[in-house]
């Protein structure tokens, strides 16, 4: 039937004949305002796809979400036999009706389509992440050669000797040189030199003219990567000359292409390690950030992107600490990374939460110099300053272990939300350089201070109530009725924070040592504090938020609007994405309820 949008996910996953079958079975249903289309806990004979109108999703009379055209509902009622919520038409609404039997048939036959209907957020998300992978390779092939990292062009005269060429290659750490012979330009490779000397037994002072070749296979810097691949295959070359505006600017090697596909994260640690000065460190620091976008573009799952990024950032800070810290601080200090960096969940750089714990007194001037230099260096690398001022330059976050433990105590007793936030940030700390025992001591004290102190724990848990989890789309109805704006979800407030903080509180209570949220959840499941299935859902939901957040961060960076980094505009994402977000927010609400009951927050 015309009018059914087959490009609307998940229907875009259907093959043509499946689509024909679907379309020929569609009916259209009309619902008057106020009519309950699907009732909570009841099965539904049809999957509804909204044509016009709007449908409210209600759970025990509170509004959760508003669906509009192209949204579909309710897969749980159709596939699993019980709707999670009530679905109520709020205006004159028309829906395509997809019969249950047909839908189940399609789900059985088409796994990509089926993924949309999984009950578990985790399985659904995994399926969607896989779907994105294919686009990754495609996007690399369509990127330009100039965007690839390729070797520089180094020129040598044709009169130069084989030996000179070999030394020039070594000095520049490259494997090929351009050879200038009057008007002509040729190429000589390390392999040419080896063959000349080993197989042809030429003398080391043979001029290069004898061993280089002038039939240079070149490609333009503006060409696509797939052009380069094709040319390499056709010409059986492992290296192409790169030309820009008629001049040779470098060599593109097959290994450079490999780097594009895999990202070049494997190269960054080496560069960090080799850095001799702050300037040397600046380049890899920038590359870590560029890496995030490339890895994400290639469809790497967000938790892996975060893992790689955290690892690289920790190496970077470790190196920086070694470079900057005076001997006294290197001997007695322990550099901490906290907050999302500590949990290993930061992808795009949003802030820097770092600190220093000292096991013994150090000269005041050493400490002052370190505080200024360290923070200054990070800022010059493009780390945004921390809004909460959780950085080593702040004396609160760089002091001796003993005084810091006293600081923790006073924070605990102050009942102030900012103090609670500080404790939260600290509890995510990991040691990246120096003696990790200082951190372990401070953390043990924190756990000791809170052991059995249910009121304090509840006080701490109560931060979870700071932001409420929104009911998707509700705002838009109000806003649209007065004609302004579309609605946006703040992923950090609505999704990430409640999960992270709830898990963090449980982790402190149960003295769990892990600092990543996923690691904490795993331990809590092991201790049976959390049900294993729920634990899985929580981890998945967190990844959903991280994935969406990374997307909006990258967009915010491109738009030059960093303050919008955590916002998702519902009208800019597909119906399938909204559906996933909806599932993830449902998990957050369940978890809030769990925390509320666990810490008896209703008593406050």
């Amino acid at each position: 039937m015309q009018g059914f949008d087959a490009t609307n996910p998940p229907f875009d996953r259907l093959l043509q004949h499946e689509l024909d079958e679907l379309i020929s079975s569609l009916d259209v249903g009309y619902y008057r305002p106020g009519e309950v289309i699907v009732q909570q806990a009841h099965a539904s004979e049809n999957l509804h796809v909204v044509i016009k109108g709007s449908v409210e999703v209600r759970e025990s009379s509170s509004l959760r979400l508003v669906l509009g055209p192209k949204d579909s509902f309710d897969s749980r009622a159709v596939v699993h036999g019980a709707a999670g919520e009530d679905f109520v038409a709020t205006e004159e609404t028309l829906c395509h009706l997809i019969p249950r039997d047909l839908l189940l048939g399609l789900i059985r036959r088409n796994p990509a389509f089926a993924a949309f209907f999984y009950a578990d957020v985790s399985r659904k998300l995994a399926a969607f992440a896989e779907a994105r992978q294919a686009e990754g390779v495609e996007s690399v092939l369509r990127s330009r050669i100039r965007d690839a990292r390729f070797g520089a062009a180094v020129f040598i005269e044709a009169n130069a000797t084989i030996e000179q060429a070999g030394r020039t290659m070594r000095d520049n750490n490259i494997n090929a040189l351009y050879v200038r012979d009057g008007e002509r330009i040729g190429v000589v490779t390390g392999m040419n030199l080896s063959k000349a000397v080993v197989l042809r037994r030429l003398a080391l002072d043979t001029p290069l003219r004898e061993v280089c070749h002038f039939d240079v296979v070149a490609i333009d810097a503006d060409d696509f990567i797939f052009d380069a691949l094709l040319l390499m295959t056709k010409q059986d070359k492992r290296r192409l000359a790169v030309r820009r505006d008629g001049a040779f600017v470098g060599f593109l090697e097959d290994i450079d292409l490999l780097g594009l596909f895999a990202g070049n994260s494997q190269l960054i640690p080496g560069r960090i390690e080799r850095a001799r000065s702050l300037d040397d460190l600046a380049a890899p620091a920038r590359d870590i950030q560029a890496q995030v976008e490339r890895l994400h573009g290639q469809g790497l799952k967000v938790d892996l992107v975060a893992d790689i990024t955290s690892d690289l950032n920790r190496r970077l800070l470790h190196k920086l600490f070694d470079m900057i810290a005076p001997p006294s601080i290197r001997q007695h200090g322990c550099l901490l990374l906290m907050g999302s960096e500590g949990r290993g969940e930061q992808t795009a750089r949003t802030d820097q939460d770092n600190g220093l714990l000292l096991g013994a007194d150090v000269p005041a001037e050493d400490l002052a110099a370190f505080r200024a230099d360290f923070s200054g260096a990070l800022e010059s690398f493009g780390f945004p300053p921390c809004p909460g001022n959780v950085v080593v330059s702040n004396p609160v976050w760089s002091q001796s272990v003993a005084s810091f433990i006293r600081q923790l105590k006073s924070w605990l007793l102050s009942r102030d939300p900012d103090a609670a936030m500080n404790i939260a940030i600290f509890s995510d700390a990991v040691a990246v350089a120096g003696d990790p025992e200082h951190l372990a001591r401070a953390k043990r004290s924190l756990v000791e201070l809170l052991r059995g102190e249910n009121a304090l724990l509840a006080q701490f848990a109560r931060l979870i109530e700071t932001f409420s989890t929104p009911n998707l789309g509700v705002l838009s109805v109000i806003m649209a009725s007065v004609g302004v704006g579309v609605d946006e979800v703040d992923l950090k407030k609505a999704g990430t924070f409640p999960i992270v903080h709830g898990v963090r509180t449980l982790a402190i209570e149960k003295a769990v040592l892990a600092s990543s949220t996923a690691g904490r959840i795993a331990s809590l499941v092991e201790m049976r504090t959390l049900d294993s299935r729920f634990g899985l859902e929580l981890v998945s939901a967190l990844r959903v938020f991280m994935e969406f957040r990374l997307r909006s961060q990258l967009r915010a960076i491109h738009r030059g609007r960093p303050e919008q980094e955590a916002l998702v505009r519902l009208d800019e994402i597909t119906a399938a994405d909204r559906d996933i977000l909806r599932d993830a927010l449902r998990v957050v609400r369940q978890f809030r309820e769990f925390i509320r009951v666990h810490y008896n927050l209703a008593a406050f």
Partner: protein
Amino acid sequence: MARFLRNLFYRVSLGNPAYRFLFQPGPPDEVVVIDCETTGLNPRRDEMIAVAAIKVQGRRILTSDAFRVVIRADKPPTAESIKVHHLRAQEVALGKQMHKVLPELLHFIGGRPIVGYYVDFDVAMLDKYVLPYIQAKLPNPRIDVSAIYYALKYRNAPPGTVHDLRFASMLSDLGLPALHQHDAFNDALMTAMMYVQLRDMQERGVQIGRLRNVQQHIPVSA
């Protein structure tokens, strides 16, 4: 009254008794929405080139069981009508002949009321073929969506109000999506959507506001 008498006459004079079912009431709460594409707007002279019929059961539009057919007309479509319907002479020639279409269509319609946009035109067009075939005109009750729309929107309107009953205007006023027009099936489907919504508004006694913005730039013909 006139139609009652006419129907009475046709019932008696019905040429083919197999079609008596047209005079019986159809299944309760069912209507059939019909749209014809023609070579022109004069039922005497012009020919039908495509017809689509969709049943509506209560508030459910049974698009999965629609009747849609291209008719092989005696007269080739004119250049003008090709422009409107995008049905070329070739496609029309591939269609079915009217005497093969009619029995199926009449059985599909049965005794159900016929719903359309300016439904009298579509029924007049059908009657042109039905009358010689069964010696009777279609006796079915007719429901015109533009008439319901008019009643909900312009009844009690102050004198001088501009009445806009164009298809596209009604569609956008009711918030319905515009499908590609002048395809018999799409037109019938959009008419059916208007019908279910208008009938419900009528049942609930809801008036259509006259201040709503209506997109007026799409000229429309039946």
